[in-house]
């Protein structure tokens, strides 16, 4: 801005940020704590915008959804353990597998990664919060309400029942008259809002909220993974939200998008769904791969091999991921030429994944591995990742996919991908960052037990599913006859799934025990290289007492690595304590270019989330007046939210200037 130079005399509009240090207990540090702390009690609970609180809420909520989805899976495994079981009715089974899919894919996989990223991004990037702290809170509240919304009809026996990909016309009004599908459709549109605002927040945070010197080539791989996922979500989520909205219009307003009798096309649904669905698959694994790329090197005592290659492969995967949605639709009767193209692309997509695998193995090979629990989870993850990737190669081969598609082989593949590439890194990640989150170490003995029980249970449970698929077992059947030859594999799978569940149980016991009795953690118990370990455990409310200056990719290993001339400055940095403040930096080089005013805690995100969720309830129940009222309430909340504030210097301060001087 050219005008900036002319306003040097107004410190509320332009100033030189003070550089200094603020050790724990100093007056500056106490002042910072007061500035950033939330109000005590329920007021702070509802109004907080602290990314650490929100991140933890994401983690806990998503983990609860994981447990709910897991229990649903176990009930299904009881039904399938033996042929001709009658534990569940076919309708109960449909609702269970649909809710299992919705829960795991939409309410667990991405939200848990958002939890990690919300908590860790500012700590890793050297920031005091996300770019839009209030938006962050909104994203969480809507996620929570959408989850409750999607589950609300389950106790009434009216849960979504057409599978998580919900093909029309089975999901249309003619074949599915109850509220089941409306709940799914509206719930997904609501959840889409949460995902989108979350994604916007991550993208802008990456562009603006990094410590000086944290240039784009120095951010941790988790940041690359989440950024890639967020960019993908920005472009992909509208597709599924639109698909569900059109379905809802078809069902409730009498439109004809999917109505065969009036020229609608069932395949339109499949296109819209999978154009979203495939990028989404990468959105829920790339950040988890980022967790491994960042945490594994800590236990190998050396930096990740091929940082740039891994970062680039992350983005390449996503880019290709937008061009392979047809491989979910090979059986729909498309021309062979189109299938060849999409099949070949789907094979190519395994190349960037290969880059990551070789980078991890090389890191272990060249390092000096320390066999702590997190290392076990990450090394185990590499094995599962390879199996999931290789079975993915089989399903990308078009003729083979025409056999494998919609059989248990696909179920096996997707569980290796989603559990192997998401759950294992997530659990490993919790072991890794638990000391940072809570200031206590997790128990190593229980940790190793939990890994081995989970790893063995997982392979015992899911590997036989490949065999079931090759033996021709279709997915989504509620029972099977004894003469089909699937009895043994199913029994083994059921046993394995319970062993796996036992592993999760040990992990949970470990968490509870360690929360109470864990060994107190130092600020950097693993001797890790990244910035989040530079602060006390758990982190203070303001994250960084001074905004550090970063000179390398591994700020805490600089004395042992030769990464260039500079040394990061962690104790001396920008003080920024004139209200809640943070430095804004340029997108690529992270050169400071603005002092950002961060918002105070606010109730508006909670109420905006609540009103929008209630608006969707109104739509579901056809309460028109109520819905209109809620839309007005939402607009009002937004208006309050957006009202330009002096405290944030969003509008002109009170001091009046002589126009002539100001204008030069």
């Amino acid at each position: 801005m050219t005008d900036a130079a002319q306003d040097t005399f107004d410190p509320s509009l332009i100033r030189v940020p003070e550089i200094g240090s603020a050790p724990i207990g100093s007056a500056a540090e106490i002042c910072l704590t007061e500035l950033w702390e939330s109000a005590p009690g329920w007021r702070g609970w509802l109004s907080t915008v602290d990314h650490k609180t929100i991140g933890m809420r994401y983690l806990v909520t998503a983990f609860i959804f994981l447990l709910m989805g897991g229990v649903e899976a176990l009930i299904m495994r009881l039904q399938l353990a033996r042929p001709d079981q009658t534990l569940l009715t076919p309708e109960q089974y449909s609702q269970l597998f649909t809710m299992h899919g919705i829960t795991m894919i939409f309410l667990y996989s991405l939200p848990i990664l958002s939890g990690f990223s919300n908590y860790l991004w500012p700590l890793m990037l050297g920031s005091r919060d996300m770019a839009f702290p209030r938006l962050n809170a909104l994203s969480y509240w809507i996620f929570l309400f959408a989850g409750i919304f999607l589950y609300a009809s389950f106790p009434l026996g009216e849960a979504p029942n057409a599978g998580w990909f919900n093909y029309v016309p089975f999901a249309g009004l003619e074949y599915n008259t109850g509220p089941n599908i409306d709940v799914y459709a509206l719930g997904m549109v609501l959840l889409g809002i949460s995902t989108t605002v979350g994604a916007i927040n991550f993208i802008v945070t990456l562009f603006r909220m990094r410590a000086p010197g944290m240039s784009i080539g120095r951010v941790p791989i988790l940041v690359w993974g989440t950024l890639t996922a967020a960019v993908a979500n920005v472009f992909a989520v509208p597709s599924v939200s639109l698909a569900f909205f059109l379905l809802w219009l078809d069902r409730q307003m009498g439109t004809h998008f999917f109505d065969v009798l009036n020229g609608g096309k069932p395949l339109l649904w499949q296109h819209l769904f999978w154009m979203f669905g495939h990028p989404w698959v990468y959105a829920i694994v790339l950040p988890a791969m980022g967790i491994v790329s960042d945490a594994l090197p800590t236990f190998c005592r050396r930096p990740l091999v091929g940082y740039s290659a891994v970062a680039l492969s992350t983005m390449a995967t996503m880019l290709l991921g937008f061009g392979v949605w047809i491989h979910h639709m090979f059986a729909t009767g498309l021309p062979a030429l189109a299938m060849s193209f999409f099949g070949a692309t789907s094979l190519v997509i395994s190349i960037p994944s290969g880059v990551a695998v070789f980078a991890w193995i090389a890191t272990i090979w060249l390092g000096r591995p320390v066999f702590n629990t997190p290392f076990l989870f990450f090394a185990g993850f590499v094995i599962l990742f390879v199996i999931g990737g290789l079975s993915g190669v089989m399903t990308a081969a078009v003729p083979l996919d025409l056999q494998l598609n919609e059989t248990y082989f696909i179920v096996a593949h997707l569980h290796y991908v989603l559990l192997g590439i998401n759950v294992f890194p997530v659990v490993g990640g919790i072991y890794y960052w638990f000391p940072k989150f809570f200031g206590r170490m997790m128990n190593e003995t229980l940790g190793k037990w939990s890994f081995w029980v989970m790893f063995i249970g997982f392979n015992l449970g899911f590997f036989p599913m490949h065999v079931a698929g090759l033996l021709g077992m279709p997915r989504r059947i509620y029972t099977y006859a004894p003469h089909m030859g699937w009895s043994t594999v199913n029994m083994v799978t059921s046993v394995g799934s319970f062993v796996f569940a036992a592993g999760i149980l040990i992990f949970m016991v470990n968490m509870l025990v360690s929360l109470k009795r864990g060994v107190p953690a130092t600020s950097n118990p693993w001797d890790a290289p990244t910035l989040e370990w530079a602060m006390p455990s758990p982190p203070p409310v303001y994250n960084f007492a001074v905004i550090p200056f970063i000179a390398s990719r591994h700020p805490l290993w600089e004395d042992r690595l030769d990464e260039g001339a500079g040394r990061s400055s962690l104790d001396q940095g920008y003080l920024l304590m004139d209200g809640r403040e943070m430095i804004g930096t340029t997108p690529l080089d992270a050169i400071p270019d603005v002092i950002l005013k961060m918002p105070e805690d606010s109730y508006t995100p909670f109420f905006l989330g609540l009103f929008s969720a209630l608006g969707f309830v109104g739509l579901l129940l056809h309460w028109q007046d109520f819905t209109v009222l809620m839309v007005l309430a939402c607009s009002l909340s937004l208006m309050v939210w957006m009202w330009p504030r002096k405290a944030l210097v969003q509008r002109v301060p009170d001091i009046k200037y002589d126009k002539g001087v100001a204008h030069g």
Partner: protein
Amino acid sequence: MNSSKSGFSYGIAGNYAALAAVPVPAMAENEVAPLNYFLHSYGPASMPTMHLGWVFVAILVVIFIIISLLLIWAVLHKHFAEDPRSMGREDQGMLWIYIGTGISTCILFAMAIYMLVTLNKVAKPTRAPALTMTVTGYDWWWKVEYEDNDPSRRFVTANEIHIPVGQPVLVKLKSADVIHAFWVPMLAGKTQMIPGLTNQQWIEADVEGVYLGQCTQYCGVQHAHMGLEVVAQKEDEFRIWQDAQSKAAATATDVNTGQKIFLDQCAGCHAIRGTEAVGAHAPDLTHLKSRRLIAGGLLTNTPDHLVQWITHAQELKPGARMPSMVLTAAEISALSAFLSTLN
């Protein structure tokens, strides 16, 4: 009413050995898993895929073993370090990525070519199809219409397809309600049956036998019980079957009690050619007795099963469109006597 458990205890289509109506030479070993396409594919529409599967599995298992060994070796080999606090140099190890990715890319390239060649082989038959039929998916059964230039030789049947061995057969696929998928894995890959669209799939059996098929797109509560059978026969046997099927029911003029009950209670949905029963919502029963299975593949076609199916359909296949009929003992025996005449 007894619990549904007892309902299930009577004869779910089991014991394939009991199905002696058609010789099953090729199927003997498949009693273990009648849909096991990975080891037992028959015919040019599925054999190339089976071979592709074997080669891919072999390559991938080898790759998996190599990578696992590398990983295990990486973890377990002795790691030297003079200074325990020292860290390796960041720029080391790129060779791993170059070599690993380079080799994988070459292998993938070869696999992609093999895949495309196979796709080309199974996409279309080399000869013109000897026979064309339309299969329409219904909740939860299959309507089969045989085409012929001679209208008198066109006929409709359900859930059981007969084909002449060694000849390509074109199957046009439609759906009457929701999306289903036609899959007879030992003969070909699956193809969705999409309402408003006619898809195609060709099959060819080069060995005589009975090949099981199954719907593979979730289509509602009884998706699990939507099976069909493809019976591949010698040309002459197939012709005999075809001739028999194209005739109207032999009982057409013989009005008896059983037929009356059928016309009153069943004809709204079921058709029997040659009678006034012309319902179109359920399987055509003109030659019911000739079929090996009933209830969408759930039960073997014995008189007992038939009676159980008529009276307890909702216990055997909850949610099916077939109601559990409430009939007196006398009505049941009359109806069953009538049905037994539908050869």
